[in-house]
C-alpha cells in the first residue's frame, strides 16, 4: 500500500513537472501571468509529491518492507532505525528519489521567493527547473524505479552497504553534498532565462550571486564532511584520495567558486559576461557529470556501488544540457558585448581574471585525470587508473598560485593602481610572508610546497588584517566609534566583502593544515603479541587483548577488536576493529582516531591472527588534521555571513505583480 502510494506519487510527479514546463513555456512566450502561475503551482505540487514518495520510501525502510526491492537490498530487520532512515540516500534508486526531493524543493523555494519579482525571467527559470525535475521523475518512472516490488518476499534483507552503515556521518555528508549539487540548478536556470530573454544585464547576476553562494556553502560543507567521513571510516589514514567521486564533487565547486569571483567583475565592470555565463553552465553540467560518474559505475571508486540502466540516461542528460545551454550562449554571443577585460595588469579585475584562469586550470586537470581512464578505454580498450600522486603534482603549484592571488585581489583597487599604493599595501604582508618561511623551516617543516603555502597564508592573512584595520580605523576617526564597534559596523555594512575575507582566512587555515599534515606526519606498521608495545613520535601503544563479539546495535555484524592502551601526549584506550558484515565480501576496518588540535593519533587494525592472538597495526601521527575541519567551519561561517540577507535591502518594497501565488 505505502510503496504503491510512493510509485503513484512519482508518476504523477512526472506529469506535474511536464505540465509545469509546458505552462511556463507558453506563459513565457505569450507573457501570460496566469499560465506562469499555473506552472508555479504545478511545481509546488511536484515538490509535495516528491515529499510523499520520499516519505513512502522512509516508511518502507523503517518497517523493513522487503516486498520493495530497494528495501530488500539495502536493509535488514536488524538495521537500526537511524541507518534505515539514511538508507534513503545510501543506494542508487533511493538517492535519485532524495535528489528529486531536493531539486523540487529548491525549485519551489525559488519560484515562491520570486513570485513577485523578475516577471520576465521567471517563466524561463521555471521552465529550466521543471525540465530538470521532470528528468529525475522520468528516471524514477523507467530505469531507476525505487518502488520496484519483488516476489517472493524475502524473510530477511541484504542489509545496508557495509561502508555506509559504519558511521553516523553518512547522515550528514550526502545531504549536504546533494543540497549543493541540486542547488546549482538555480543559477543555471537564471542563466538560461537571461540568455533566452536577452536580459543579460546585471539583474540576473545580482540574483544569481546569492543563489550560487547558498548551494556553494552546502557543497563546501559536503566536501569537507566527506573528507572527514573518509578519514574516520576508511582507515587508510588520509582524508582526500582524488577518488573519482571526490573529484566529481570538487569539479562543480571549482567552477562555482570561479563564478562567484568572475560575477563580481561582471557586475562591477560589465566585462567577463560570456565567461560568467559559461561558468554557470559548466557548474550545472559538472554536477550532472558528477552524478553520472557516481551513479553509473563507469569508474571504479569507493562510491561506485551501483551499475544500472540509468547510465545512458544521465549521459544523455549531460550531452543534451550542455548542447542546449551552449547553443543558447553561442546564439546570444554577438549581443553579450564586451568579452575582453579592460583595466591594467595590476588591478583587482586582473587578479580576478588570473584567479579564474587558475580555477579553470585546476578544473581541467581534475576533469582530465578523472576522465582519463574513460578516454583511454574509449580509444584503446585498456583499463587504467590515475592515482593521487599525479593529481597532487599537477594541482599543488596551481593551488599555491591561487593562494598568492587571494592576497593580491582584495587589496588591489578596481581599475588599476599606482606603484606607491602597491608598495604601501603590500610591504607589511610581504614581510610577514617572508619571515614565516624560515620560522616554519626552523620548526622542522621541509619541502617547497608546504613552506610556500605557509609563507603565502601569512601574506594573505596580513593583507586582510590590514584592510580591516584600515577600514575600521577610518570609521573610528570619522565617526568617533570605538575600535570594536567600528569593526562590527564596518563588516556588517559590507557583508559580501568581509564574509569573503573570512572565507579566505578559512581557506588559508585549511591550506596550511593540509600542507603540514601531508608532509610532516609519520607512521609505522607493526605486528604485536599481547603485552607488546609500539612507539611512534612520543606515543606508546600497548596491545592488551583481542575481543571478538557481535555488535550490540546489529547482531549480524561481528566485530574483531584490538584493545590498546595509549600513553604519551594523549593517553587512554583505543579500540581499532575489523567488522565482518554478512553482505560485504571484505572486512571493514574501523580505525581508532584520537583528535587534538596539534596532531591526531590514528590506528587501524590491518589483520589478526586468531591462533597466536597477534594483531597487525598501522599507526599514524597526523599533525594539524583538526585544523582542516576547523578551517572548513570558518569557510562555511564566512560564506553564511556573506550570504546573510541585508536588512536594508530586503526592506525595499517588491514590485507588485497582479497574479498572486
Amino acid at each position, binding site marked *: 500500500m505505502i510503496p504503491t502510494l510512493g510509485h503513484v506519487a512519482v508518476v504523477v510527479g512526472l506529469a506535474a513537472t511536464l505540465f509545469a514546463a509546458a505552462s511556463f513555456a507558453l506563459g513565457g512566450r505569450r507573457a501570460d501571468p496566469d499560465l506562469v502561475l499555473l506552472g508555479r503551482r504545478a511545481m509546488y505540487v511536484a515538490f509535495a509529491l516528491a515529499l510523499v514518495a520520499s516519505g513512502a520510501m522512509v516508511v518502507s525502510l523503517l518497517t523493513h518492507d*522487503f516486498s520493495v*526491492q530497494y528495501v*530488500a*537490498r539495502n536493509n*535488514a530487520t536488524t538495521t537500526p532505525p537511524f541507518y534505515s532512515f539514511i538508507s534513503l540516500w545510501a543506494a542508487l534508486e533511493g538517492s535519485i528519489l532524495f535528489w528529486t526531493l531536493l531539486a523540487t524543493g529548491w525549485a519551489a523555494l525559488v519560484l515562491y521567493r520570486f513570485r513577485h519579482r523578475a516577471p520576465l525571467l521567471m517563466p524561463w527559470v521555471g521552465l529550466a527547473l521543471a525540465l530538470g525535475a521532470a528528468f529525475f521523475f522520468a528516471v524514477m518512472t523507467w530505469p531507476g524505479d525505487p518502488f520496484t516490488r*519483488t516476489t*517472493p518476499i*524475502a*524473510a*530477511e*534483507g*541484504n*542489509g545496508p552497504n557495509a561502508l555506509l552503515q559504519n558511521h553516523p556521518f553518512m547522515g550528514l555528508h550526502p545531504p549536504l553534498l546533494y543540497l549543493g549539487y541540486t542547488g546549482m540548478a538555480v543559477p543555471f536556470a537564471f542563466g538560461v532565462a537571461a540568455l533566452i530573454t536577452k536580459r543579460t544585464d546585471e539583474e540576473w547576476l545580482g540574483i544569481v550571486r546569492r543563489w550560487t553562494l547558498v548551494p556553494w556553502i552546502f557543497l563546501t560543507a559536503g566536501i569537507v564532511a566527506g573528507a572527514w567521513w573518509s578519514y574516520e571510516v576508511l582507515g587508510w589514514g588520509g582524508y582526500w584520495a582524488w577518488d573519482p567521486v571526490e573529484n566529481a564533487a570538487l569539479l562543480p565547486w571549482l567552477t562555482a567558486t570561479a563564478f562567484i569571483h568572475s560575477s563580481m567583475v561582471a557586475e562591477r565592470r560589465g566585462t567577463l559576461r560570456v565567461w560568467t555565463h559559461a561558468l554557470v553552465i559548466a557548474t550545472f553540467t559538472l554536477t550532472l*557529470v558528477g552524478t*553520472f560518474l557516481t551513479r*553509473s*559505475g*563507469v*569508474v*571504479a571508486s569507493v562510491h*561506485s556501488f551501483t*551499475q544500472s540502466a540509468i*547510465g*545512458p540516461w544521465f*549521459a544523455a542528460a*549531460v*550531452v543534451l544540457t*550542455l*548542447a542546449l545551454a*551552449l*547553443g543558447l550562449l*553561442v546564439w546570444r*554571443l*554577438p549581443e553579450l558585448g564586451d*568579452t*575582453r577585460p579592460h583595466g591594467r595588469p595590476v588591478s583587482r579585475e586582473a587578479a580576478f581574471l588570473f584567479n579564474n584562469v587558475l580555477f579553470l586550470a585546476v578544473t581541467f586537470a581534475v576533469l582530465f585525470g578523472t*576522465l582519463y*581512464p*574513460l*578516454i583511454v*578505454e*574509449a580509444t584503446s580498450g585498456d*583499463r587504467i587508473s590515475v592515482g593521487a600522486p599525479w593529481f597532487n603534482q599537477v594541482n599543488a603549484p596551481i593551488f599555491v598560485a591561487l593562494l598568492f592571488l587571494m592576497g593580491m585581489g582584495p587589496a588591489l583597487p578596481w581599475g588599476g593602481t599606482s606603484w606607491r599604493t602597491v608598495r604601501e599595501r603590500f610591504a607589511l604582508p610581504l614581510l610577514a610572508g617572508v619571515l614565516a618561511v624560515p620560522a616554519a623551516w626552523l620548526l622542522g617543516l621541509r619541502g617547497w610546497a608546504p613552506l610556500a603555502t605557509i609563507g603565502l597564508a601569512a601574506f594573505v592573512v596580513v593583507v586582510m588584517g590590514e584592510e580591516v584595520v584600515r577600514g575600521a580605523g577610518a570609521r573610528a576617526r570619522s565617526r568617533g566609534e570605538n575600535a570594536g564597534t567600528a569593526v562590527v559596523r564596518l563588516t556588517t555594512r559590507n557583508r559580501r566583502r568581509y564574509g569573503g575575507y573570512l572565507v579566505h582566512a578559512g581557506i588559508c587555515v585549511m591550506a596550511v593544515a593540509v600542507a603540514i599534515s601531508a608532509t610532516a606526519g609519520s607512521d609505522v606498521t607493526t605486528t604485536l603479541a599481547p603485552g607488546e608495545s609500539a612507539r611512534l613520535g612520543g606515543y606508546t601503544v600497548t596491545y592488551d587483548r583481542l575481543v571478538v563479539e557481535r555488535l550490540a546495535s546489529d547482531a*549480524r555484524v561481528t566485530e574483531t577488536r584490538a584493545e590498546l592502551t595509549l600513553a604519551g601526549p594523549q593517553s587512554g584506550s583505543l579500540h581499532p576493529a575489523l567488522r*565482518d558484515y*554478512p*553482505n*560485504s*565480501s571484505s572486512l571493514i576496518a574501523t580505525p581508532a582516531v584520537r583528535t587534538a588540535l596539534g596532531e591526531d593519533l590514528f590506528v587501524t587494525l590491518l589483520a589478526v591472527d586468531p591462533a597466536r592472538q597477534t594483531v597487525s597495526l598501522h599507526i599514524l601521527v597526523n599533525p594539524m588534521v583538526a585544523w582542516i575541519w576547523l578551517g572548513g567551519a570558518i569557510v562555511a561561517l564566512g560564506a553564511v555571513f556573506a550570504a546573510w540577507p541585508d536588512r536594508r535591502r530586503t526592506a525595499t518594497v517588491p514590485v507588485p505583480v497582479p497574479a498572486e501565488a
Partner: protein
Amino acid sequence: MGPMDRLISGPWRWLVVPVLVVPLGWVLFAGIGKDPREIPSPLIGKPLPAFSATTLDGAPFETDALAGRPALVNVWASWCAPCVEEHPLLLDAAARHGDALAMVGVIYQDSADNARGFLARYGDGGWPDLLDPSGSIAVELGVTGPPETFFVDATGVVRYRHVGPLTAEVLDEQLAALGLDR
C-alpha cells in the same frame, strides 16, 4: 571590427557546441555498460579446487563426488535476497536434469540453522549444501559475495562464473554449454 569580433558574431562560432559536446558525450557513453571492477575468475579453464567439507545434514563431502558429470556450484546465504530470487531456478534445474547434473551449494557466512530455515521455507532440492564456517571454500573459489555460481564440466574444469542472481537464460545457456539440453 577586429577578427575576434567577426568570429564572435559569425556563423563559425557555432562550432564551439560540437567541439565541446561531442568528445564529452563520446567519452561518457563509451564507458557505459562495462564494469570497471569486473575481473573474470582466474579459475576459468582450470580444475575446480579440491576441498572437503561437512554438509548441512552432517555428512562428509569431497569434491571427488562431482567427478564424471557436469556440476554446478552455487554459493548462497539465507540473508541474501537475490539468493531467494534465483532459488526456484536451481530447484527447476535439479528436477529437470536429475543425476545428469551434480549440484552442490556452498553456504556463505551463515549459520546452519539459518540455512536450514531457508531450505524449509523456499524448498530443498536434495543436493548437498556445504557448511563453510571459516570461509575457506569461499576464499578458494574467490567469491566476492553471494549469490555466485560456477559451472564445471565433466572433467572437473571450471567453465563459467556467474556473479549475482542467475537468470533462466544464463542457466540454460551454460548448462547447454556443458552438454545438458533442456
